[in-house]
């Protein structure tokens, strides 16, 4: 476990040395503050559009950080030839993968905490209420959704040729899952066979990332989601993360790294 934590620490250091997070945070902050400063019909109590814009930017930024950071981990190690000395140490391939995953996930978690803290300050300064429990649920589920994404990207990075292609394909997949995930079954019913069975099969087999998006609950000041459902969603994310990590390990342990 210590080896995995040490490897994760290196990934976290890499994130705060690179400028991706800072650029995305400044961009999010600027756009949110700009949205908050627009005057609509001389009403200074309007807040939902600011929340909407800020949360959308947080989601986009977190996805960019998670996908781009993860996609370059293994290929960069191979390209810089630092993977061989690393594996020459008493570290297994599985531990390398687990360390990379944990590092990316924790780094994304740190970024999310900063983003949500900023969100809470901005909205709280205008609304004068801080529904911390709703924010916690929204951030927690987003973080666990990112765990699935990071594990999936890690798997993809072992097979795709370059980090850029891994990132692009991952973005398309994640956006597709978030946008169409809950409607795929409805769409399937409107299709002729064999497309109907194919879409229905994908619907039941894919990870449902859309469950982890609680932005509407935050924007529209809705009550908390039931804690048992919240816990089940967390378990669901852990299971899917485990599936992707196992698949990645199956691929990585037999992969010829010298080519």
């Amino acid at each position, binding site marked *: 476990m210590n080896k995995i934590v040490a490897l994760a620490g290196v990934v976290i250091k890499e994130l705060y040395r690179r400028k991706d997070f800072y650029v995305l945070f400044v961009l999010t902050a600027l756009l949110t503050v700009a949205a908050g400063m627009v005057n609509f019909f001389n009403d200074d109590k309007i807040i939902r559009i600011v929340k909407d814009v800020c949360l959308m930017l947080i989601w986009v930024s977190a996805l960019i950080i998670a996908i781009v950071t993860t996609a370059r981990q293994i290929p960069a190690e191979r390209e810089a030839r630092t993977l061989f000395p690393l594996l020459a140490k008493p570290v297994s391939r599985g531990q390398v993968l687990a360390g990379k995953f944990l590092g990316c996930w924790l780094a994304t978690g740190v970024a999310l905490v900063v983003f949500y803290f900023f969100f809470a300050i901005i909205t709280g300064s205008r609304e004068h209420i801080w529904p911390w429990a709703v924010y916690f649920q929204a951030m927690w589920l987003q973080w666990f959704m990112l765990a699935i994404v990071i594990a999936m990207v890690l798997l993809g990075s072992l097979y795709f040729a370059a980090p850029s292609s891994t990132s692009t394909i991952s973005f398309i997949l994640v956006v597709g899952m978030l946008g169409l995930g809950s409607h795929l079954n*409805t769409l399937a019913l409107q299709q002729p066979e064999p497309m109907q069975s194919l879409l229905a099969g994908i619907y039941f087999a894919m990870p449902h990332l859309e469950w982890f998006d609680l932005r509407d609950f935050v924007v529209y000041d809705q009550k908390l989601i039931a804690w048992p459902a919240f816990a089940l969603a967390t378990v669901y994310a852990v299971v899917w993360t485990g599936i992707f990590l196992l698949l990645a390990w199956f691929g990585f342990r037999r992969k010829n790294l010298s080519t």
Partner: protein
Amino acid sequence: MKTSPWIALVSLLALAFTVATSLSSRADIWSKRSKSNNFFGVIFGDGRKLFANQFFTMADVYFHSGYYPSIFDKNSAEQKEIISASHGAKETEEDEKKEDFLGQPKDWIDAFGRHFRLTEHVHLEQGNEREMLPWLRLAADLDPQKIETYTVGAFFLREHLGKTNEAEAFLREGFHNNPENSELLFELGRLYQDSADVTRARNVWELGVKKFLALDDAGKKENKLVFDQLAVNLGRLEDAAGNFDQAIKWLRAAQSVSPVPGELQIQIDAIQKKLAAPASVPATK
């Protein structure tokens, strides 16, 4: 021959400045886009209208606090409720049932997924209607010819938020962009009537009738309902002001287009009775 790069740079800047002064007046003629005083007009040109409807829909989504059908759900193409609400429609229990677009869960994934979706049908109230305003403002900027944006926005500003001045300014902006539209004049008249400014309400509604009468046959057919509202409201206004002859004239005009001419006849009969009785209220016009 060697030339200093600084001299070259200064020469190029001077040349660019000279050409710009010569071209700026002509460039305005080349592009209609540059004439727009609207930010979105400059950026998107006429393409901005494509987004306007989406932004108007977003106002409706906010009106429902996020409980809204997506393009994949049934009832997604129905008329937007903010339009009905702004025209005085009240929702019945039956309407609410009809809007339960989610229906029964189709499978366990759908059933579990509903924990993470908004499933309660609520409308904005108690001043929270203000949250829709940014989308209506943006929709108006994107498509200044979309009349509903102004009428719906002005309704919520006036009726729910008590912002009469902002509502008037928004309607006037709409009228500035659509000078031939009588629906905007009708809404403006309602606003003046609510502010007890009867004279301005009358003038604006009469202008609305003039605009309607100037339309061609197809336009008149399309705007029948607006004329009906204008004439009925003018009739009621004149009745309240004691101008009974005028009131009857307007109500008779409304009868020609109204879906309920019988009800208007009852109002006409009541006014005629008042006319036959000795006058007690002095006429204001």
